[in-house]
């Protein structure tokens, strides 16, 4: 058997190799603050490419990430904390015995986080994908709220609004970056497979897709569950990066940030989602000055917490109104090198 590596595969390998080199270089040379931002970028890359799969590629408007990220974060945190640590920090109610018994290593914790999110997504799929219409958006928006309500009202499992603290800090750039590379590679493979083509068909014309024999329920469910899996994993990585989580971390703003990322990058483009992540997460760091007092020489504006979010929402509206394609449109990186073809 002889393995032939095509030209584009060489390019992919080169990209992966340089990404790996960059991860190694960054974690050995960069200061802590930069590494932290890079960690954020890596985690949000995972979330953005998976969110883009359901929103951009399959064209089903969904607002789920904050819910599934919360689930992933809580599952991972409960699996990583040992019984003593849990017993020590559950202040509101003492934990259920089975909560104390939960224990796994980091890889399994992430895997369970993803699987659990994915199963929940499967359950949600039945009510929302059997009917046409945009119910997914409103159900997932409500889902995020319910997860928060559940987390606050079940202190025996989640320690209520105090959240979980002292989670072992397993996440580092090798983990986050490595899983981000895997996620992008995996999603690109799905998009280019027959399933991916079916997803795009559902997005572009659902009636035509049905006429061609695409089982739209299955395809939408597959896209949604895959998204949820990666979002659960991303949530787990986030929990192990931040070391403390609480219900307030996973508000709708979380989802909103991801929405801007994929809209800016170009709905439907996985490469675009990666570019969008770097721009938005890097930009959000840079835009911190908006929340602080500003000195215009003649007058000084007071500190305005939340100004960043106003700017974010204006960006989203403007992109939608005047540059609907975003940066990449529906194209991927390799399409940029194909001249004359669209």
């Amino acid at each position: 058997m002889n393995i032939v590596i095509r030209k584009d595969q060489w390019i992919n390998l080169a990209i992966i190799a340089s990404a790996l080199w960059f991860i190694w270089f960054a974690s050995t040379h960069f200061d802590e603050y930069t590494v932290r931002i890079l960690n954020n970028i890596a985690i949000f890359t995972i979330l953005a490419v998976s969110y883009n799969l359901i929103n951009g590629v399959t064209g089903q408007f969904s607002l789920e990430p904050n819910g599934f990220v919360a689930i992933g974060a809580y599952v991972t945190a409960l699996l990583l904390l040992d019984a003593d640590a849990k017993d020590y920090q559950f202040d509101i109610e003492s934990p259920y015995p089975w909560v104390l018994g939960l224990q796994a290593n980091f890889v399994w914790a992430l895997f369970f986080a993803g699987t659990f999110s994915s199963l929940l997504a499967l359950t949600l799929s039945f009510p929302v994908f059997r009917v046409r219409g945009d119910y997914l958006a409103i159900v997932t928006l409500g889902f995020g709220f319910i997860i928060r309500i559940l987390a606050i009202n079940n202190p025996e499992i989640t320690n209520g609004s105090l959240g979980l603290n002292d989670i072992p800090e397993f996440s580092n750039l090798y983990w986050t970056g490595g899983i981000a590379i895997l996620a992008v590679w995996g999603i690109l493979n799905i998009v280019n497979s027959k399933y991916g083509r079916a997803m795009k068909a559902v997005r572009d014309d659902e009636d035509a897709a049905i006429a061609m024999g695409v089982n739209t329920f299955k395809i939408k469910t597959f896209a949604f569950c895959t998204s949820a899996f990666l979002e659960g994993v991303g949530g787990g990585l986030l929990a192990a990066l931040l070391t403390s989580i609480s219900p307030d971390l996973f508000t709708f703003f979380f989802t909103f940030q991801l929405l801007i990322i994929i809209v800016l990058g170009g709905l439907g483009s996985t490469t675009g989602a990666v570019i969008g992540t770097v721009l938005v997460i890097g930009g959000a760091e840079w835009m911190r000055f908006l929340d602080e007092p500003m000195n215009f020489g003649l007058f000084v504006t007071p500190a305005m917490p939340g100004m960043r979010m106003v700017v974010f929402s204006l960006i989203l509206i403007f992109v939608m109104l005047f540059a609907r394609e975003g940066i990449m449109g529906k194209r991927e990186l390799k399409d940029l090198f194909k001249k004359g073809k669209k």
Partner: protein
Amino acid sequence: MNFLEFMQQMVNGFSLGSMYALIAIGYTMVYGVLRLINFAHGDIMMVGAFLGYFGMAVLGLPFVAAVFLAVVGSSLLGMLTDKVAYKPLRDAPKISLLITAIGISFFLENIFNVLFGGTPRPFPVPEYMEHIINISGLIFSVASLMVPIVTLLLLTIILWVLYKTKYGMAIRALAFDVNTVNLMGIDANRIIMLVFGMGSGLAAVGGIFWAVNYPSVEPMMGVLIGLKAFAAAVVGGIGSVGGAVIGGFIIGFTEVVVVAFLPEYGGYKDAFAFVLLILVLLFKPTGILGINFDKSRF
């Protein structure tokens, strides 16, 4: 539990349901003409409540004048969002419209947050509304009696507009078939704007009632109320004004009954609307009034 207690809860449920109904009508009408979940609708309600607050607390207007100000202001805002944000996207894929709606919603919440702060402001409820009426042990405030009455009045007006006027006919025709409406020489965009104006005005009334009953206003108040009102619209059968009212009452009563009789589940009060929404989607996606999307609406 005695009869009196039961009746007391029914009064509360009626009042809460009326507020959901007022807001749900806006969702259902916009969905009828544009097939759009107007995520900003709950926040337009919030703006209405704030306008009422400013009218009374800052300008010192009497209650009725403040309500008038809020209704006019919210209607204009609703029409403005349509003109600025939704109209340019009429021919765009549906997802662009939904994303823009989310953007408008988030923008309104956060601009109010930046301008007026996130802490709830006490709403200056007029004294005569807090007056307590006691009918053989059944206790309720004037406000909780006024809410359902005004709702029924407004509902009558809306139904009259929809079924007895030329504009109403145009709105119903638009929900039926956009192309034919254009062929008949009706300016569809003007009718859509009218729908936004009507829905937003009703939402403002709902918002002010909310602010009177839970006497405070805050920038994020529209999020949860809006979501529940949308659930009410779906439960009643989205696209149908009558259905929105029925759905609103169902959700209002469910919440009141659960909190009153199962207090240990009180923390989950806000989750019931969604459970109901999911059940309806599973078993009867067309909602209670069973409107078929391919046939007539309203």
